[in-house]
């Protein structure tokens, strides 16, 4: 199935794009989407312990399931204000 991956800030720079469309195996979780992404782009892996994740623009967890057409976002530590 197909999902949209969103990346922000330095993660976006590392990947060279803020929005990627990827085919992932079902059943998928945020974790499995992330693992596939890091296999493709190992440099992203350094964020595994510090990032937050979101599904369809709502904060989520690595264990959350992902469905066809979902938008899965990986967020470096935030620095607004």
């Amino acid at each position, binding site marked *: 199935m197909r999902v949209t991956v*969103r990346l*922000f*800030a*330095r993660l*976006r*720079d590392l990947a060279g794009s803020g929005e990627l469309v990827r085919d992932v195996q079902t059943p998928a979780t945020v974790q499995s989407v992330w693992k596939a992404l890091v296999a493709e782009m190992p440099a992203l892996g350094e964020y595994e312990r*510090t*990032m*937050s994740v*979101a599904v369809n*623009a*709502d*904060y989520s967890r690595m264990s959350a399931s992902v469905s066809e057409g979902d938008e899965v*976002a990986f*967020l*470096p*530590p*935030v*620095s*607004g*204000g």
Partner: protein
Amino acid sequence: MALVAVTPAALDIQGLTQEVSRSREGDGAVASFIGLVRDHNQGRRVSFLDYEAYEPLAVRALTRITDEVIQAWPDTRIGVHHRTGRIEIGDSSVIIVAVSPHRANAFAACRYTIERIKQIVPIWKHEHFVGGDVWLEGATADPDDESARQAAYRIACA
């Protein structure tokens, strides 16, 4: 004017103040906070900041914060706007206005809101300084982290 916004446009503290404070005769205090882009950071001479946001989630996170404010200080009303894109030195990146019958709650609501923004709102500063650029990274955002929320509350009430 919306009470919560994430926008590339210049921020309007007067407009937001009017929006938050209008037509409540019981009000006794308005507190506001304006965050500015500073010309130095960690020994670097900053040229400008470029703010990136995951906009729909940033609006949700800001709305969550204003809901938390109303829970903690039920007599208070709050508005918060955060700017995105390139912002020059001295220009405002975030504005917060809190209105309450009493000053203590207005001040606390303002302080709580900026502390929570730095904890859980998906916005990032790309700092451009003399000699290079760097993404600033602060807190791992976890809105369900109760200890972080309590830390913000303690700072607000200190």
